[in-house]
């Protein structure tokens, strides 16, 4: 447990729900703006952890091998009371430290290069167009989440991995059970087991009858089916809801800024910088950058001891005024890519260029094809996911005019 130079203090319980969609919780900002930017907090698990609020410290921690990603370490920061169940699967690359991490990641990064993602564009465009066609043919208002935001990334990752899309509903319900803070430990455990069993069977089928998809290629390269299973699990969960939430949040943000939306529609070169800014502002996986110290580390005037849990307040750090000018403003042309929305260090998101490409195609296509698109409910009344590990919106009612 973390100690404060021997004097025992009661660390405040960390607030984990957002009140404003555009801003980190006030308390996180306050912790960031203390003299050192490093404080002790009590997590919902009862653990006392160091919380880093500044971008500079977080980037330093995430590139420092004295901090471990081993989620099975008893002091790894946890957001639930229960100890997570391990042993259902081998650890995937996000849980591995060097030297095991490198080979695990290198086995799969060739599948996610910028060039590979560019090659997927025509198919993603087709998927986006089909879903917009279906939405336009359906009733108004439509729920953008069900019509577009969820199915597009979900279909893309399923196709890429070689998971039949008919099983998409199964993935949808299981991954939301994994990401919600409001399910019991048993329910979460059950969801993990069912997903694992499903993927195990799929991988066995692919091993018997090799297919030219990501999982098939992993097996063909001679990777152990148990490791392919952990990888499949990780990629499905990571590829499912994250991009979906960024689509919903991005569409709402852009619809609320009609002038900037016009500028974006007229100049597609503005889309990628806008996406980067939306990633920064929302930081949807705000607690994904957690570590446990494995050696003593001096940082910002405090000593983090070996065994101390450490948490990055990534959302507050992405609004850190010492790293970003007018950090609390949304500036779609800011062009700052030094944020930690995809993490930093060796574990930085593998699928980030897939996510950027999907977001780019969705925004460009949606606003071009439906110029009259508007929200059918006030933006500040939408059901934001204050109860999930990954921030987003449950439902986004939208409507539009008939084409003239």
């Amino acid at each position: 447990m973390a100690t404060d130079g021997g004097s025992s203090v009661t660390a405040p319980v960390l607030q984990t729900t957002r009140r404003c969609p555009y801003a980190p919780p006030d308390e996180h900002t306050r912790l960031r703006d203390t003299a050192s930017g490093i404080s002790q907090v009590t997590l919902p698990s009862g653990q006392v952890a160091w919380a880093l609020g500044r971008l500079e410290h977080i980037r330093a921690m995430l590139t420092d091998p004295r901090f471990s990603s081993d989620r099975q370490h008893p002091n790894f920061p946890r957001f639930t009371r229960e100890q997570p169940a391990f042993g259902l699967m081998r650890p995937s690359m996000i849980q591995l430290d060097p030297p095991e991490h490198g080979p695990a990641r290198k086995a799969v990064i060739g599948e996610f290069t910028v060039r590979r993602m560019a090659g997927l564009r025509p198919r993603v465009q087709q998927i986006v167009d089909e879903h917009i066609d279906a939405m336009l043919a359906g009733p108004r208002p439509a729920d953008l989440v069900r019509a577009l935001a969820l199915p597009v990334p979900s279909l893309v990752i399923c196709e890429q991995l070689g998971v039949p899309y008919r099983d998409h509903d199964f993935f949808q319900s299981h991954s939301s059970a994994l990401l919600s803070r409001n399910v019991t430990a048993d329910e979460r455990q059950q969801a993990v087991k069912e997903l694992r069993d499903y993927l195990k069977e799929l991988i066995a089928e692919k091993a018997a009858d090799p297919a030219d998809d990501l999982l098939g290629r992993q097996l063909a390269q001679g990777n152990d089916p148990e490791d392919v299973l952990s990888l499949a699990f990780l990629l499905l969960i990571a590829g499912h809801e994250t991009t979906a939430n960024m689509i919903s949040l991005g569409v709402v943000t852009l619809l609320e800024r009609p002038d900037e939306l016009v500028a974006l529609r007229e100049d597609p070169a503005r889309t990628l910088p806008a996406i980067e800014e939306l990633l920064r502002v929302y930081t949807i996986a705000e607690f994904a950058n957690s570590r446990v110290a494995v050696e003593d580390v001096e940082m910002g005037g405090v000593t983090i001891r070996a065994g101390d849990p450490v948490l990055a307040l990534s959302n507050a750090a992405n609004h850190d005024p010492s790293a970003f000018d007018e950090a609390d403003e949304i500036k779609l042309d800011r062009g700052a890519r030094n944020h930690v929305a995809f993490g930093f260090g060796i574990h930085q998101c593998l699928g980030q260029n897939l996510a950027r490409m999907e977001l780019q195609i969705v925004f460009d296509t949606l606003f071009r094809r439906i110029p009259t698109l508007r929200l059918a409910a006030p933006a500040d009344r939408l059901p934001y996911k204050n109860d999930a590990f990954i921030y987003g919106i449950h439902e986004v009612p939208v409507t539009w005019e008939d084409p003239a």
Partner: protein
Amino acid sequence: MTKIVADLDRCVGAGQCVLTDPDAFDQSDEDGTVVVIQDTPADDEALKRARVAVDICPSRALSLTE
């Protein structure tokens, strides 16, 4: 003259460098690691992009040498 140096053992293939300057960086088809295709920035703009790439690279795989 400033040169871009890449440490392939550190590279984790995030492709941030390619996004920063596709004229200077590419990724190997095989394992996704960085390939420096233009290691001497030709002008100030290219040098600026190289500095951004060094700062943005998540695994600290890139550096500049004089």
